C-alpha cells in the first residue's frame, strides 16, 4: 500500500480523502437540513460545521495522544502537529458532538434537529474516509486466511478499512429508511450512534492496531458498547415520555440527503 492514488491529474492521498470526506459531510449536512424544509436550519448547519470540525480535530488528537501517552508526554507539541495518521474516530465523535452542542447552546439552535441531519450526512463521508485509511494502511486488520484478505505488512489481512466503509454505507441505508418514516426528533441521532457502536464493537475486534486500555482491551470497542447502550437508553426513555409529535420538525430522506 502506498498512501497515494492517482486519478488522471489528481493525486489523492489518505489526507486528501479525509479533507474530501469533510467537504462531502458539509454538503450532505446542508442538504439534509434543507430537506427538513427549514431554510434557517440549513444556514445554521452550514455555520455549525466549523466549530464541529474544530471540536472533532481536538477530540481526535486528544484521544490518540492519551492512548499514546508515553510518546505524547515527551513531546506535547505532538498534540498540535499536522499528523493526519494520529487522529482517532471516537475522540472525533465526542469532540464534534461537544463542540456542536456548545455552539448550538450559544447560538440558540435546535441541537437535536441539527444532530439528526448530521446523522444522515456523516456515514457517506465516513465511507470515503475509510478508503483513505486503506490507502495509508492505517486501521489495518489482523491476518486472515479468508479469500478477501488484502496483502499488507507481509501478511494477508482482514480489510478492516473496507469493513468500516461497508458498515458506514449499510448504516446510511438504514438511517435513510428510518428517516423516510418521519421519526421523532432525536431518533436518527440515536440510531446513528447505535449503528456506530455496533460497527466499532464488531470491526475493532479485527483490527491489529487498536488503541488499548489496560488488560489489552480495545478502547474502540468499549466506546462502541457505550454508544449502543446510549442508543438503547434513548429508546427506553422515549417509550416512557413521548413528546407531542405534531410540534416537531422531521428530517426526511426524500431529497436524497
Amino acid at each position, binding site marked *: 500500500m502506498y498512501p497515494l492514488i492517482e486519478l488522471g491529474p489528481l493525486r489523492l492521498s489518505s489526507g486528501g480523502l479525509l479533507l474530501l470526506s469533510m467537504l462531502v459531510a458539509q454538503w450532505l449536512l446542508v442538504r439534509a437540513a434543507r430537506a427538513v424544509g427549514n431554510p434557517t436550519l440549513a444556514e445554521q448547519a452550514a455555520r455549525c460545521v466549523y466549530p464541529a470540525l474544530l471540536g472533532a480535530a481536538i477530540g481526535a488528537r486528544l484521544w490518540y495522544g492519551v492512548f499514546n501517552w508515553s*510518546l505524547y508526554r515527551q513531546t506535547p507539541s505532538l498534540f498540535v502537529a499536522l499528523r493526519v495518521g494520529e487522529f482517532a474516530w471516537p475522540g472525533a465523535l465526542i469532540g464534534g458532538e461537544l463542540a456542536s452542542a456548545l455552539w448550538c447552546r450559544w447560538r440558540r439552535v435546535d441541537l437535536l434537529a441539527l444532530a439528526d441531519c448530521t446523522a444522515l450526512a456523516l456515514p457517506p463521508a465516513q465511507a470515503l474516509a475509510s478508503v483513505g485509511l486503506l490507502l495509508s494502511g492505517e486501521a489495518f486488520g489482523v491476518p486472515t486466511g479468508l479469500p478477501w484478505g488484502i496483502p499488507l505488512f507481509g501478511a494477508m489481512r482482514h480489510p478492516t478499512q473496507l469493513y468500516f466503509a461497508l458498515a458506514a454505507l449499510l448504516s446510511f441505508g438504514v438511517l435513510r429508511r428510518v428517516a423516510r418514516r418521519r421519526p421523532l426528533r432525536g431518533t436518527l441521532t440515536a440510531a446513528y450512534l447505535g449503528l456506530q457502536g455496533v460497527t466499532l464493537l464488531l470491526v475493532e475486534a479485527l483490527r491489529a492496531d*487498536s488503541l488499548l486500555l489496560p488488560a489489552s482491551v480495545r478502547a474502540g470497542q468499549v466506546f462502541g458498547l457505550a454508544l449502543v447502550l446510549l442508543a438503547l437508553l434513548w429508546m427506553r426513555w422515549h417509550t416512557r415520555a413521548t413528546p407531542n409529535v405534531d410540534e416537531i420538525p422531521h428530517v426526511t430522506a426524500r431529497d436524497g440527503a
Partner: protein
Amino acid sequence: MPALSQRQWNVVLVTVLVAGSLFIAATRVPPPSGAHPTAAQTDVLADPAPLPDHPAPDLALSQLDDTPVTLRDLKGQVVLINIWATWCPPCRAEMPAIQQAYAAYRDRGFMILAVNQREDATAITPFLEQHGLTFPILLDRDGQASATYQASALPSSFFIDRRGVIRAVYGGPVPPRMIDGIVEQLLQERP
C-alpha cells in the same frame, strides 16, 4: 419503536451490557508470542507495522558498497531508521544532529540505518563527504522500503528499541534534543 415495558427495557440493557462486555473480553488483543514484559515498557501489538508499539517490519537493503544489511540482524541494539533523500532540505538539515547522536551513542548499542529513497551513489557520496556522515546508508532503489514504512513525508524517522519494537515515529525532521532523549531512554531499557 418496539413496545416494551420499562422492566423489559432494563432486561435488554443488562443483556446487551453483559453480552457486549463478554465479546470485548473474548476479542482482547492477544499477547505477542515470545514476548515477555519488561519494566517501563508499553504493550506490544503482535503485527509488524511502521507504527508505535508494533514490531518494526524487516528491512533488507544494500549499503553503498553493496554490503547487505537486514534490520533483523540488529536485534538487541537501539535503531533509528531515517528515510531521506539528498534533494530534501529538511533531511539535509537534520543530518548533523543524527551524526552527533551516532557518534555519542554508537558504543552503547545505537545504530542508524539511513535509508536513501531512490537515489544512486553519485548523488549520495558527495553529500556524505561534505557533511562527514559515517553511519550506514542503505539504498532503497525501488522505493519498496519507503512504501513498507509508509514514508509519505521526508524525512521519516522510526525509533526502534532493543526488542525490535517501534517506540516513536516522526514524519518531518526530529528536533536534536528529541533524538538524544529518545535514544537515551531506549538504551537504558533492557531487552
